[in-house]
Structures are given as C-alpha cells and as structure tokens.
C-alpha cells in the first residue's frame, strides 16, 4: 500500500486529479479502522497492564500498527499552509519570521480545544494537497476552497469562512441593489478578495468607477466624505460596520456558489475531519468564530501588513474599531 501511495503521489504531481480513486478504497479500510480501533486498543492496553504476557503482546502489536494513522491527545499536528495570503496566513516580514493570520488563530483554537499541539509548516500552495496525501502534514488551512477536484484527494471540514460580499452605502443613498450602482464610485480594499468582485460588478453594471484604498476604515471615511458612493466588503465585516453606524446600510451581493468558502483539508478518511467539525460547530454557536473573523477582517489588515501606513488616519480609525472586542493589535492573537 505504501508503494502504491508513493506511485500515485508521483503521478499526482503532474496530473493533479488522477490516481486518488484507486487509492481511496485501501486507505478507506485501514485508515478508517485505525481511527476507530485505536481508542479501544489503548483502553485495552491500560486495563491489561497486569494481565498475562501474551495479551500484552497482542495489544502492543495492535497499538504499533495503528500508531501511524491515529492521533491521540498530546500529539503534534502539522498544519500545512502557504503564508502569502493575508489576512488568512502571512508573515509580518518587517518584524518576524512567524506565520500569523486568521487561519493560524483558528487552527490554534481548534487544536487547543482537542488537546493537540500545533506546528505550522509553510509551503507553496500547489504542494499542499500532495503534502497531505503523502502524510507530510496532518491538515491544511490556507484559505482553501473545497473544489470537486480537491475533494478527490482530501476530506474537507465544514466551511469555516464564507466569502460573501456586501455593498455598504450611506443610509440615505437610496442604493438598494446592484443596478443602482450605475455611474457610482465603488471603493474596494487594495489586494483584497473583493477586488475581483468589484471588477465583475464593473462588467455587469455600466459606469461603475472602482477606487482602491489600503484600509477598510479609510474606505468607510470616504463614504462619509462622499468621495465613495459605496464600498464592497466581506459580509461579516460589513454587518459589523452597519450595526455600529446608524448612518450606514448594506446589502449582500447575490452569491452564485452556495458552497463558496474556505474549509480545512484532511487526509481522506482522517479521524480529524469529524473532530475539527465538532469544534467548528461549537465555535460557531458560541460566536467565537465570528469574533475571530471580525478580529482579522474588520479594520486594518493592510496596516498590519505594513502597506500604506498612514498615521494621521488612526484617530478616525477608533470610531470604526471601537466595536472590536478583541485586542486591536492582531499580532497578539496568535499567541494564545
């Protein structure tokens, strides 16, 4: 099975989609069983500690066989990521070598909950799924979407970040849907996912002029100064602003793909998928997930990234950011 896996991994490097199907049934058997058996075996071993030698040997052998694929509390999980995608995962290169970001915080939170240690390993985005498949990493968080092709080679958790986009306008602007944007100036954060969305809007609706700003608070200020008629933001962020500012309103852009969002990737039939989903559900219910999203997507991600720093703007930022419950400085969130 090992050899087959190796060959398939090799083939995968060139033809990303092929191979997994032959591989899957085998993995299915051993992988699945290992996950289940392991808990029992461990219990057995403990109980049987005083029993006869033969029994012990049996259990030890079983334990050894299962060790490879099974995770236990206290194990270190290696997370693969590609640290060039702020605010999900990136390095504040001016200051440190440490990978930080929303995904990192979330991974820390989940593994902490499950009692695992976490180690983050950076690699090229294209190498992440092969790394998963060849057991170099235990899971992948890299702002990754669970596409059909990827699902053939990896299991995915539930979506933990939905990239829906909202249009935020002044409450009295009269802009109520996409068509109302005709001839308007639309603000978007430089380098954000919403830039692509804005370009699409430009194609669909005539006369939209797109302008960029480095930071979201700046964009909100531009609405107040009437330079922007509307801005486009991640929906979570947008809700946050509108809840807190009576003079702002927003509507969500129609989202074509329902499953459009980020999920955590695991090895096929990994026991982790279920464990992580459990914690994700808890975090969503308790509102912790939203808090984390706000922490990373509302406010000055660009600032944290060191681009377009502008000291004078900070006073105005306070308005927009006073709703942030967590520490304003995103750097620290990674440490807990």
């Amino acid at each position, binding site marked *: 099975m090992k050899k087959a896996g190796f060959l398939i991994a090799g083939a995968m490097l060139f033809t990303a989609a092929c191979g997994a199907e032959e591989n899957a049934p085998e993995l299915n058997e051993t992988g699945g069983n290992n996950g289940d058996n392991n808990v029992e075996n461990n219990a057995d071993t403990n109980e049987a500690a005083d029993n006869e030698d033969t029994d012990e040997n049996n259990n030890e052998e079983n334990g050894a066989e299962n060790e490879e694929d099974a995770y236990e509390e206290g194990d270190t999980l290696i997370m693969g990521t590609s640290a*060039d995608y702020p605010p999900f995962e*990136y390095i504040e*290169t001016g200051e440190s070598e440490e990978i930080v970001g929303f995904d990192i915080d979330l991974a820390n939170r989940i593994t902490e909950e499950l009692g695992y240690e976490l180690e983050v390993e950076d*690699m090229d985005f294209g*190498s992440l799924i*092969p*790394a998963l498949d060849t057991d170099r990493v235990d899971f992948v968080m890299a702002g990754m979407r669970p596409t059909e092709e990827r699902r053939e080679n990896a299991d995915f958790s539930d979506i933990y970040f939905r990239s829906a986009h909202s249009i935020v306008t002044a409450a009295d602007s009269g802009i109520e849907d996409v068509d109302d944007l005709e001839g308007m100036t639309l603000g978007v954060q430089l380098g954000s996912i919403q830039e692509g969305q804005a370009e699409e809007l430009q194609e669909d609706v005539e006369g939209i002029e797109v302008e960029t700003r480095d930071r979201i608070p700046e964009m909100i200020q531009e609405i107040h100064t009437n330079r922007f008629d509307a801005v486009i933001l991640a929906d979570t962020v947008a809700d946050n602003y509108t809840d807190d500012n009576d003079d702002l309103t927003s509507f969500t852009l129609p989202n074509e793909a329902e499953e459009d969002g980020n999920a955590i990737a695991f090895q096929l039939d990994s026991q982790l998928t279920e464990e992580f989903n459990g914690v994700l559900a808890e975090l969503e219910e308790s509102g912790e997930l939203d808090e984390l999203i706000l922490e990373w997507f509302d406010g000055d991600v660009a600032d944290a*990234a060191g681009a377009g720093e502008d000291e004078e703007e900070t006073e105005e930022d306070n308005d927009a950011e006073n709703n942030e419950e967590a520490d304003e400085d995103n750097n620290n969130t990674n440490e807990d």
Partner: protein
Amino acid sequence: MGLDFAALAPSYPFILRGIWVTLQIVAVAAVLGFLFGVILSLMKIGRFTFLRWIADAYTSVFRGTPLVLQLMIIYFGLPQVLGIEIAPFVAAFSAFALNSAAYVSEIIRAGINAVDQGQKEAAQALGISYGEMMKDIILPQAMKNILPALMNEFITLTKESAIVTTIGVMDIMRRAYIVGGETFSYFEPLLFAGFIYYCLVMVLTVLGRLVERRLRQSD
C-alpha cells in the same frame, strides 16, 4: 507600472535572511554533488561495464527529468517508501546534489578524457596505482580544464535552487513571495530577489576566476 521599493524597506531584511538559507542548500548540494559526480565519472571511464552502465543510466534519468519532479519525489515520495522523515532542507540539498552529480559527472568525464593520454602512461610506467593516479595526476589536471564548466553548473544550481519554494524552504525566492503576499506588491520583492541572485552569481563568478588563476599558476 509604478514600482515602489521604499514601501518594502521593512521587509528587506526578511528577504535577505533567505541568502543564508539558499547558500546553505547550494553549498551542501554543490559539495556532495561534486563528490558524487567524481565517483560517477570514474565509473564511466572505468573498466567495469556494469558500473559504467549504472552511471550512464543514472545520468540519463537525472538529466532527462525535471529537477522539480526529482525534488517532489524525494520530498513527498521517499519518506513513504523508506518510512523515514526527510526534512525540507535535507530533501532540497539531496535533490540538488543528486541532480547536479549527473551533470558534474559528464563535465568531469569530458575533462578526464581531455587530459593527455601520456600522463596516464607516465604514471603507469612509474608503477603508480590507478587510484593515486586519478587522484593526484589526472583529476587535478582535468579540474583546470573543467573549472569554467563546473562554475557554470554551480551558478545554475544557485539560481535553480529557487524551486525549493515548492516544498516550503524559506529561501530567497519563497521569502519574496511571502513579502509579495503580505504587501500586495508582487513585483518589487521579486525584482529584489532577482537582484540578490544576481549578486550571488557575480560573487561565484569572481571566486571561480580566482580559483582558475590559482590553478593556472603552473602554466
């Protein structure tokens, strides 16, 4: 296209720290690749057909497939087959050493063949053993001839080392990507990385000339 290098200023040290990483990989790979290349070249010119066949097959495989594939196989595949862990750094210099050895062996083989046959006869006539002859008489002379080609190979190695980004070694190139991702300005960090590679290659070139001059002192 407006380029703004000043905005990157805080991140320059981050990219520069990659020089050490790149140099480590290249240096280890170059030394191992060279030694292995010498062995391969000796197999190629030796008497044993079987060894010659192995060396030729090795060379054809490693020259005939993409380096990035070799890197992937070593990094992703080998740990599964052998059941051992291979750190990215180890995978990186191993892949480069193995690949480089194939090229180096061809360079050295040609260099050895270019040494006057009379040198071999003179050594034989003195009763000098094959090993000593190769080590002290033939190879030193071959080296002088092949140094430019060898330098070329090391320069190529330095630049090609950028593909270690695929397995997440924090070399110059990977760091440039990361800074690009962080600052939303992709071109400037890449150009800066290019500048660093260029400087490294220039240093290598100068070093090569110095060594060459030293070897030529007997002329």
